């Protein structure tokens, strides 16, 4: 028995049991979707790093040991002569500090500003440790609230190297309030609460207040993307529905694909919840992706169904559906398998949990879309009360297939291509070269703040603060000694001091802080305030006693950030003014080499960590794995195509439009200066999954034509009015859906939309121009060779 007859019978059985199928598919949708309420969000940046990655392990350890979390940073800036040193600005800092300390998301003990920090000074009699803004002090003689006091504070801070560039800018224009979160998950709420506090202040002339910081960026970015995506995802679905309606002029065609989409999306995210996989920031992109894929399957089934109805008006609804399914199951299965292969390869090649899950659930979604398109869609079509042939598919008055604008367009395109295959291939080759040229210009770069439009407050705040302060990003070195009190060793402290000097020579590093700075400041304070005593004492006992003295003069938790309880571990923090990967790349490995050379002996070991290091490792994975990931996805898709077509030549032919699409995505990035970052690194893999469909539908139809009518330009013209038309609407729907993202407020989503639209357009055009042209020139035998097994196609209509 022939394969084609077997598939006819299979779909006849399916329709005979349609009520059961309907119940079963709805049960499957219900079952898979039932876990949906359990879906948890993890929109943190740290989620991108595998939990056992050393950089993150260390960062978490530091958070625990030193209680450090990513801060929200408030900058008060006044560029007049006195800078921030006037009574109004100082009072503002004090008010904001107190208000921020009272916020429930903020650790009240971990708010740092001029209003919280102590001045450490010495005079002939003794030492002074007191707050800059304390009311009654020994050191500051002028009353709080006077200009004179402000000048005294300025003089004191300018004589206090530790706070320069960190707490106040060297030019006196800026001071920071650094507030640490109780928990990184509270970042968004904290950011908005602090914004509200700032907005409630009426600022005197010239004073600006900015809110920024890693804590703010992280929290804000996630909600920013989430909010935008939750507006755009439904809009994408709406646009696709409109395209369906316009393309098919049929309510069926607008509603039924949406049911397939709903089943696919609900099922994928339900299973995501059931497997306790969180919804990451980038998972937003999966929604549009699945919509596009599920709709494409439906478009091809519906197109063929309507064509069957037109070609053989005597067929019953059921018979037409069975024929359409029998014709379409193979290309739809092929595209589903290749797309799944692409997603699986993305999943397997990524080290980042969100990307890994994107690939896994992308593949699952494609599978679900395939299942529902193969079962639910024919059943629903058979249950739909009418069998009306929509206008675009109906015959005209003369009984010929109606030639509408889309058909005419595609037909002309086909005629042009098939008449001149050589120039088409040549143009394709040129485009390929241009693509390579552009792709070579792609820069690898990641900068979290660039994810915000430059008009966003948070973007401006980041730039303003980094311009005047030592830097908002922190690079830490954890120094560990083998036993308690190990940090009293002057030799270890001197090494830490040299390490600081080394770090300060690295690019974008504004300054460094360590306990050495405190030791020196204290040493100077107990030495009558002499500047010459701003050194590390030679006597370990004295170092111990200096710390003891400071501990006795300050709050019990004052030193928690810098050194652990028994003076065994300490944290050196460098302030970095740029958050770009290209800068981090010049910092982290260099510092790691230095540390390996100068530490790591029996007296002390050192480990590079902190936000800058985590970001570096975070993105290094992308930097290194992107090409591999693309190669793997591409390879997997091509391999799947080779196996499915049982021909290397056909598999490679299917790869041409996809390869060109990816290349052009990179070319656009290269020419437009869009860097390869965490978001754009995934686009290629997504684009592969969407692009392969066009090539496979086209090639499958070409194979069918070639087997029955041979490989001539005239025969191939038949590709255009039906398959070409279906691909056109497939293209418009998918490109339109992704194109919606261009209207986003969020730069990464704009890029996502634009680049996927580029890929899909390229794949669509190449599948209908370059691919047939190549086929015509190469005439691969695999297309015309017929075997018993492979002849799975029943001619569905006469070829014009």
């Amino acid at each position, binding site marked *: 028995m022939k394969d084609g007859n077997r598939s006819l019978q299979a779909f006849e059985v399916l329709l005979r049991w349609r009520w059961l199928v309907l119940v079963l598919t709805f049960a499957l949708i219900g079952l898979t979707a039932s876990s949906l309420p359990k879906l948890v969000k993890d929109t943190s940046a740290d989620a991108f790093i595998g939990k056992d990655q050393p950089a993150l392990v260390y960062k978490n350890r530091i958070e625990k040991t030193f209680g450090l979390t990513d801060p929200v940073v408030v900058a008060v800036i006044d560029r007049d002569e006195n800078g921030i040193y006037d009574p109004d600005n100082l009072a503002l800092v004090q008010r904001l500090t107190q208000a921020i300390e009272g916020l429930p998301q903020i650790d009240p003990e971990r708010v740092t500003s001029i209003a919280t920090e102590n001045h450490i000074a010495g005079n002939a009699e*003794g030492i002074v440790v007191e707050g800059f803004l304390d009311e009654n002090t020994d050191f500051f003689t002028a009353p709080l609230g006077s200009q004179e006091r402000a000048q005294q504070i300025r003089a004191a801070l300018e004589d206090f190297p530790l706070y320069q560039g960190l707490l106040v800018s060297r030019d006196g224009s800026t001071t920071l309030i650094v507030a640490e979160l109780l928990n990184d998950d509270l970042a968004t709420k904290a950011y908005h609460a602090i914004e509200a506090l700032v907005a409630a202040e009426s600022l005197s002339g010239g004073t600006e207040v900015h809110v920024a910081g890693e804590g703010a960026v992280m929290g804000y970015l996630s909600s920013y993307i989430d909010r935008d995506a939750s507006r755009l995802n439904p809009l994408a679905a709406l646009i696709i529905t409109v395209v369906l309606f316009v393309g098919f002029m049929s309510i069926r065609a607008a509603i039924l694909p949406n049911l397939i989409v709903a089943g696919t999306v609900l099922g994928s995210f339900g299973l995501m919840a059931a497997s306790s996989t969180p919804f990451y920031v980038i998972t937003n992109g999966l929604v549009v992706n699945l919509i596009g894929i599920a709709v494409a399957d439906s478009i091809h089934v519906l197109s063929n169904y309507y064509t069957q109805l037109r070609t053989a008006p005597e067929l019953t609804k059921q018979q037409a559906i069975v024929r359409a399914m029998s014709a379409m199951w193979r290309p739809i299965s092929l595209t589903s398998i290749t797309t799944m292969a692409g997603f699986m390869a993305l999943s397997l090649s990524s080290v980042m949990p969100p990307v890994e899950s994107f690939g896994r659930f992308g593949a699952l979604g494609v599978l679900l879309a395939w299942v529902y398109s193969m079962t639910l869609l024919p059943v629903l079509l058979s249950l739909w009360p009418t069998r009306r042939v929509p206008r675009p598919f109906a015959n005209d008055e003369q009984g010929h297939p109606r030639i509408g604008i889309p058909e005419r367009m595609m037909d002309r395109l086909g005629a042009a291509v098939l008449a001149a295959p050589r120039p088409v291939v040549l143009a394709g080759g040129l485009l390929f070269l241009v693509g390579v040229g552009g792709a070579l210009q792609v820069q690898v770069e990641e900068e979290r703040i660039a994810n915000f439009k430059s008009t966003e407050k948070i973007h401006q705040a980041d730039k303003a603060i980094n311009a005047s302060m030592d830097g908002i990003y922190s690079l830490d070195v954890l120094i560990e000694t083998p036993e308690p009190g190990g940090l009293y060793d002057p030799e270890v402290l001197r090494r830490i001091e040299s390490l600081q000097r080394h770090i300060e020579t690295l690019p974008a590093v504004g300054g460094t802080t360590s306990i050495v700075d405190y030791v020196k400041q204290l040493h100077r304070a*107990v030495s009558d305030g002499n500047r010459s005593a701003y050194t590390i004492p030679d006597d370990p006992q004295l170092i111990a006693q200096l710390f003891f003295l400071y501990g006795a003069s300050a709050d019990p938790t004052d030193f928690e950030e810098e050194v652990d*309880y028994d003076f065994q571990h300490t944290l050196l923090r460098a302030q970095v003014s740029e958050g770009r990967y290209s800068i981090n790349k010049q910092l982290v490995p260099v510092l790691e080499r230095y540390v390996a050379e100068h530490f790591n002996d029996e007296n002390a070991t050192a480990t590079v960590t902190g936000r800058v290091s985590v970001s570096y490792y975070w993105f290094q994975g992308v930097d290194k794995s992107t090409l591999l990931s693309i190669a793997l996805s591409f390879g997997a898709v091509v391999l799947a195509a080779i196996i499915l077509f049982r021909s290397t030549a056909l598999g490679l032919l299917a790869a041409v439009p996809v390869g060109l699409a990816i290349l052009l995505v990179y070319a656009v990035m290269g020419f437009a200066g869009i860097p390869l970052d965490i978001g754009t690194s995934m686009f290629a893999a997504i684009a592969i999954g969407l692009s392969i469909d066009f090539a496979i539908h086209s090639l499958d139809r070409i194979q069918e034509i070639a087997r029955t009518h041979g490989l001539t330009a005239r025969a191939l013209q038949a590709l255009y009015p039906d398959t070409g038309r279906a691909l056109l609407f497939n293209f418009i729907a998918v490109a339109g859906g992704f194109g919606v993202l261009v209207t986003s407020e969020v730069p990464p989503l704009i890029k996502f939309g634009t680049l996927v639209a580029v890929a899909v357009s390229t794949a669509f055009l190449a599948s209908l121009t370059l691919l047939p042209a190549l086929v015509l020139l190469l005439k691969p035998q695999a297309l015309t060779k017929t075997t018993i097994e492979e002849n799975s196609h029943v001619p569905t209509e006469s070829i014009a």
Partner: protein
Amino acid sequence: MYPLKVLLSALLLSLPVMVLAAPSGDEIIEKVNAREDGLHVQRNFTVELTDRNGRTRTEKTLSYRRYFGDEKRTIIFYTEPTNVRGTGFLTFDYVDRGEDDDQWLYLPALRKIRRIPSSDRGDYFLGTDFTYEEIKKEQKVEPEDYHFVAQGTEQVDGRELLVVEGTPSDEAIAKELGVSKVVWRVDPEIWMSRKTDYYDRNGNHARTITLEGVDTIAGFITTTALHVLNHKTQHSTRITFHDTDYESAVPESLFTQARLRRGL
């Protein structure tokens, strides 16, 4: 030693507590403040500091205290950890609240005495979670600082304690002490608060001081262990007193900068 005073306080303690007429807040605090604490005392105390991760640091001291009239002088020498051994603090607490206390510090590695600025009464004492005021008053309360209101009784660990709530008498005191409210739970058997809660100026529950050990030594009701937990930082301090001795001589000459320099 004032034998008469000891006798009196012993008498006072042996009297059955009059519960017929509930005492007012002021009366309870008055009784608390009437507790005798000796002209001079010598004792070792151990400070155990614990941070929010449960890590502990221990410091041991030898200390002397003596009244000079109403003025109180204290000298503390650290014996452990060894690298701070010999570090000493000498403090003169003046009665006149307008006059700042004097404090000197001796760092043996520097061989120099440094004067350190007086602290606010609400500041933390030598890196502990106790304030200077609490250390200085030794379980007593400055009556002028608060308005006291008796709040009935509360059962704590099987004991019926008298609850007194204090609110700072004025804004300046509230600011100086850093509190908005204090709740004492006074044990009428010993006239000490067994559990005291402090609320910061924002009204948040800030700290709880628990009397963990009390003993009668030479007729004086003497604290032997005191614990304080800072609810905001989860940092805590336990002070335990050992070898409390009210009888050995504590000469006046001990409380000088020269003696501070000589160390232990």
